[in-house]
């Protein structure tokens, strides 16, 4: 048995000083279904990467693969390196030392992620006793501090509450307190605000962002909401049917989305300011459904794409550098007459 890799210093390639998570050619397969089809991305220390896409695009499978929390039966291929540690090969013991300590996870629905028969305070304290080797009394004191940090009023009293005593917004704060209890380097937030009201959404995201700055965490933000991405992400990876189709800085993506799917997603999203009204403007639709990607030999998006050519249907296009970003679309990156014509018509 070797020593747990987590105790070893970050041994690494020369350029990786700032690199926290490196995912290369990740594939996730469930029986009869390939959910993630060879994606690569990285996150540097302290930055926020958003993984954007619609239901079933593989964004949650990616986050669970990184945490190695996929259900039995699911298989992973590719390389996932966290601070020099190979997470795909890591044994259960190494993973237990990492999860909750150096990597935290927040899920969409706090009611199903919390244990209903334990007080919320004990659930947070368990983490601290396990990873930080605190005594029960120390863990309790630290938990009260954490509840205060996530702005739960009257934290000392709320320690002994059960999840059902709390509202949805409060429960999500408990999840956040639990995830950041041991000052993780990486926090994965999978649709952290989808189940919450819009008034709470910005509050919870603002909280996550300020914790990220205070604790110098990196944040992998998984969401379908482009407004959330525009406000809280540094970089964005757009996923479609198990592939990353565009990787760009948040600014570049919102200025000028390149991939036809990114464009379609932006076009069909409703905006509060400067948005149209049904009496004067029709919404841009992306025709068809994701299901069309199922047996597509070429680009997954080709069956729904207005720019698709015969070449698109032959082999899946790789990500290529284009205007300071990466785009998996040969039609857009090597402008033909057709793309120019359509782009001019926009």
């Amino acid at each position, binding site marked *: 048995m070797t020593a747990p890799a987590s105790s070893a210093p970050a041994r690494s390639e020369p350029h990786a000083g700032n690199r926290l998570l490196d995912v290369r050619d990740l594939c996730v397969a469930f029986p009869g279904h390939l959910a993630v089809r060879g994606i690569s991305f990285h996150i540097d220390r302290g930055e926020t990467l958003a993984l954007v896409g619609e239901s079933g695009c593989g964004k949650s499978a990616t986050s669970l693969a990184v945490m190695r929390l996929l259900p039995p039966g699911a298989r992973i291929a590719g390389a996932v390196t966290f601070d020099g540690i190979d997470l795909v090969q890591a044994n259960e013991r190494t993973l237990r030392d990492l999860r909750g300590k150096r990597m935290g996870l927040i899920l969409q629905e706090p009611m199903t992620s919390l244990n209903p028969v334990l007080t919320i305070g004990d659930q947070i304290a368990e983490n601290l006793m396990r990873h930080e080797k605190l005594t029960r009394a120390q863990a309790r004191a630290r938990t009260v501090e954490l509840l205060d940090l996530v702005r739960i009023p009257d934290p000392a009293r709320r320690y002994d509450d059960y999840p059902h005593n709390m509202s949805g917004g409060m429960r999500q704060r408990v999840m956040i307190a639990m995830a950041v209890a041991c000052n993780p380097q990486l926090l994965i937030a999978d649709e952290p605000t989808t189940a919450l009201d819009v008034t709470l959404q910005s509050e919870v995201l603002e909280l996550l962002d300020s914790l990220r700055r205070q604790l110098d965490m990196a944040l992998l933000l998984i969401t379908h909401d482009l407004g*959330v991405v525009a406000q809280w992400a540094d970089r964005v990876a757009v996923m479609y049917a198990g592939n990353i189709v565009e990787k760009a800085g948040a600014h570049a993506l919102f200025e000028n989305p390149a991939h036809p799917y990114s464009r379609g997603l932006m076009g069909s999203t409703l905006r509060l300011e400067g948005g149209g009204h049904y009496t004067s403007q029709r919404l841009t*639709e992306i025709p068809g*459904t994701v299901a069309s990607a199922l047996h597509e030999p070429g680009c997954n998006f080709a069956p729904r794409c207005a720019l698709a050519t015969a070449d698109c249907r032959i082999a899946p296009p790789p990500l290529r550098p284009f205007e300071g970003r990466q785009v998996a679309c040969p039609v857009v990156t090597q402008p033909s007459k057709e793309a120019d014509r359509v782009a001019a018509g926009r």
Partner: protein
Amino acid sequence: MSLLAVENLETSYTSHGRRLKAVDGVSFTVAKGETVGLVGESGCGKSSLGKTVLRLVPSSGGAIRLGDTDIAPLDGRALIPFRRRMQMIFQDPFASLNPRQTVRTLLDTPLKVHGITDAVERESRINTIMDKVGLPRTALARYPHEFSGGQRQRIGIARALILAPELIVCDEPVSALDVSIQAQILNLLVDLKRDLGLSYLFISHDMSVVRYFTDRVLVMYLGRIVESGSYDTLWSNPLHPYTKALIAAVPSYDIDKKRTAVALKGELPSAAQIPSGCRFRLRCPIAQDTCAAQEPALRTLPNGQQVACHFA
């Protein structure tokens, strides 16, 4: 004359021996061909209001006038002719369709219930509606689980339209759908409204959707309407602090725009513990002593906008 006129409507539930009012004195109208939006946080009573208007839950006070008849006191058989004039589209197309019925049965049953005995006519109505919502006729023999979320919502819309109603209550019809599918369904609802002259009461928590889709908006807080106005005045000139907070909370797509500070304190209180005076005062950034003592009435301004706030 308005198609629907709701006056001082109340809905109450009994929970653990206590009565709580989910809808507490709400008045509004929906004109023929108009789309009225109803926004608010979860638990504010917007779904209860929608269901009460359709008489799916009983009202405990007030009037619901459909045309010139008050349907609030009607019961059982007397309601049937009014039911075909108003229908509902639900949020979750997975939960609102019977999994053991084919699409044909789902669409045929309402026609039978409402006394269309001629099988040929029923068949022709079903085919017409399938074309209108953009579903192939081969779908008729299939079951709900065989469809995607967007297609299932189309089935839900077809079922709501099969009796040729005048008013449709849409309760969060697109919030369970992906963005690209959401656009398809909203476009379909716009087309149907134009083709069939429908009126919608459109319930949603998504301000961007309401901004795009409705003509007039009601903002609801703890069972009361706190502000209403046409869609453009409400976004350009919100008066109630709650409306302002709701609008400010929507994340901006303008990446250069500075995030605005969160103005709302705390969360929606339970309808069982309604604060004295103004219901919003505990979370309000501009509340003063008057607000605790006196509940502000819903005032109508010269431009037609309505607001219930002492300081707006």
